[in-house]
């Protein structure tokens, strides 16, 4: 079966040991977590894990079932890139003098639709939100001038289809 990118969305209770349980499911099967983001979700008190993997659909389905089996997990979904709207964020820290010495940098900032978050005498910080390849392109463009620090976030994603968590929670309560 063909490998591709899958975004796994896990809705769960906010429980201290759950991240360990979930990462163990990947570890046991030697499947690398390419990106991981944990945040609150659209429902009060419910957390959302967004996990990106590059593997087959068969493995993704099995992993999602194992995740759902964990007591604190309400529901897990998986989607392909076509089925989701997704973004990543990145921060670049660059020496301030380059803004004046290297005219090309201003063009990169404009063309990449990034924002200057802060500037001081030593450095300025650029924030970029977009697809992975856009961030990679910006990184490649800036690299020759010297990047003092770089960080990229995990993917955040919403699915095009509905994720009916409220209904599922309702159903759990009726059982």
């Amino acid at each position, binding site marked *: 079966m063909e490998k591709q990118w899958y975004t796994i969305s896990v809705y769960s209770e906010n429980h201290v040991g759950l991240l360990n*349980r979930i990462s*163990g499911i990947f570890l046991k099967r030697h499947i690398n977590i390419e990106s991981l983001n944990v945040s609150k979700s659209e429902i009060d008190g419910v957390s959302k894990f967004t996990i990106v993997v590059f593997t087959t659909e068969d493995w993704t389905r099995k992993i999602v*079932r194992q995740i*759902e*089996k964990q007591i*604190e997990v309400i529901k897990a979904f998986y989607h392909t890139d076509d089925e989701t709207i997704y973004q990543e964020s990145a921060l670049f820290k660059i020496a301030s003098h380059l803004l004046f010495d290297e005219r090309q940098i201003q063009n990169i900032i404009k063309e990449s639709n990034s924002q200057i978050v802060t500037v001081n005498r030593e450095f300025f910080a650029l924030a970029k939100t977009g697809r992975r390849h856009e961030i990679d392109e910006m990184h490649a463009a800036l690299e020759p001038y010297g990047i003092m620090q770089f960080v990229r976030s995990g993917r955040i994603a919403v699915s095009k289809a509905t994720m009916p968590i409220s209904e599922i929670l309702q159903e759990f*309560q009726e059982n």
Partner: protein
Amino acid sequence: METLKAQKKESKKEKAIRITGAEAIIHCLLAEGVDLIYGYPGGAIMPVYDELYKFQDKLTHILTRHEQGATHAAQGYARVTGKVGVAMATSGPGATNLVTGIADAQIDSTPMVCITGQVPRQLLGSDAFQETDIVGISTPVTKWNYQITKVEEIPEIMAKAFYIARSGRPGPVLIDITKNAQFDELDFVYEKCTAVRSYKPVPKPEPSSIEKAAEIINEAKKPMIVFGQGVILGEAEAELKAFVEKSGIPAAWTILGLSAMDTDHPLNVGMVGMHGNYAPNMLTNECDLLIAIGMRFDDRVTGDLNTYAKQAKIIHFEIDPAEINKNVKVDVAVLGNAKETLEMILPLVDKKEHKEWKAEFDKLHQIEYDTLIEKDIHPTKEGLTMGEVMEQINIASGQKAVIVSDVGQHQMIACRYAKFKQSKSNITSGGLGTMGFGLPAAIGAKMGAMDREVVAIIGDGGYQMTIQELGVIFQHNVPVKIVVLNNDHLGMVRQWQELFFDKRYASTVMTNPDFVKIAEGYHIKSRRVTERADLKEAVEEMIASKDPYFLEVKVEKEDNVFPMIPSGASVSDIRLK
């Protein structure tokens, strides 16, 4: 809603009693119907042990000689009673010694609650004496685990622990309790847990899947059933029997499904898997429909997946959605508790007899009987066989005993030849294959079923892994019958070395102590049999004994267990020799 909650809270307060966390733990156990626990004291759990002392008229604590023994005893108790087994230990090494038993309970779906003491909250993370991250360590092998650091958490978490351990597909739960939470006081009220918001223990059966399954069953010409422990855990034995008898479908079992159906039932066609019976393994690759009930297609059952039942349609009755299409792709998945789903499908299934198809099982069974079974159970060669010992136990116990086995050749022989009329009678470490399981599990099984005969069948290797539990048998006069089938080898590994490693017997030859003397040291009646002429009488004497009894049988040193599906081979490549 809010006022209702407030009122409930108010009335809860009125009923509350002011006690310590340690005493609260005892009240939680009593409220869950626990009257027997196994464990080992130590620094971080001492406040709870102090309460156990005060409550000893209501709650019996059995001091095992090692924490691993406590888990296996709790497992044996749980497997024979269907109730939650409880094991207790201190922090650090006490807790880590539980891990093997927890892993065993996880893979064999045994309901168990383990309680461990932990260093006080303020010392967590300081590498304090006997501090270990048991929650982190046990995460991959528990159904759920939790560390209590505040006394107020005790009632709710304990209630949740028991609910999770026993509901749905059962499993082990570990609760780690810091020492400060044991000493501190709370206003204690106990409410049993009946639901956890994010947890759905039993999926609702879909009538459409049941209709689809019935349709396929009614069309099948050569169907076979393979049932597993799901039938026992779901208490679906009567429903299985009714389904088998109405549909006329030959039924085979996995090692953990054994005893869910009378072994002498005409439609019981034996065990599947690596050392299972010839007919059900061969015919797995000839049937046109395989109906799996409460089993998980373990690799020891399926052999090579690429050649497993490829010609057949597959229906899977299963409580755990994660098991569907995990190893074997199925045509119809029937989710739910087997008791409920089998009851639902029964009226939709045509009454049939599959006489010609059943005759194929009989024919292959005859081949196995003539080449193997006869020689195993009625041998004429000089050395004693494990099979003949099992046969004598069947006869002497009237097929009524609970048989507890350890892991290895003797386990395969016990499961192949033990006869059962009653469910929850075969207790063995199936998934994990834990040597040392047998002796402590037999103690737990006997204490859970004092009215039944409990016979432990153990090899000389596994026996020495938990032999210290003889101390429990002696101290509490637990009348288990222990049979050590001694071949002075780690027999199963030796068999593999003979067959697949050119007889290079690396570390499988054992120089054994005098087991009879060891048992005598614990004041347990004991006997050694070396001659066939003495076997029958010795087994009868053992079964007739009201007290614990140890029987060592010196069996042939280099016998092999057949049939055998070599690791990774197809089920139809099963070897008779």
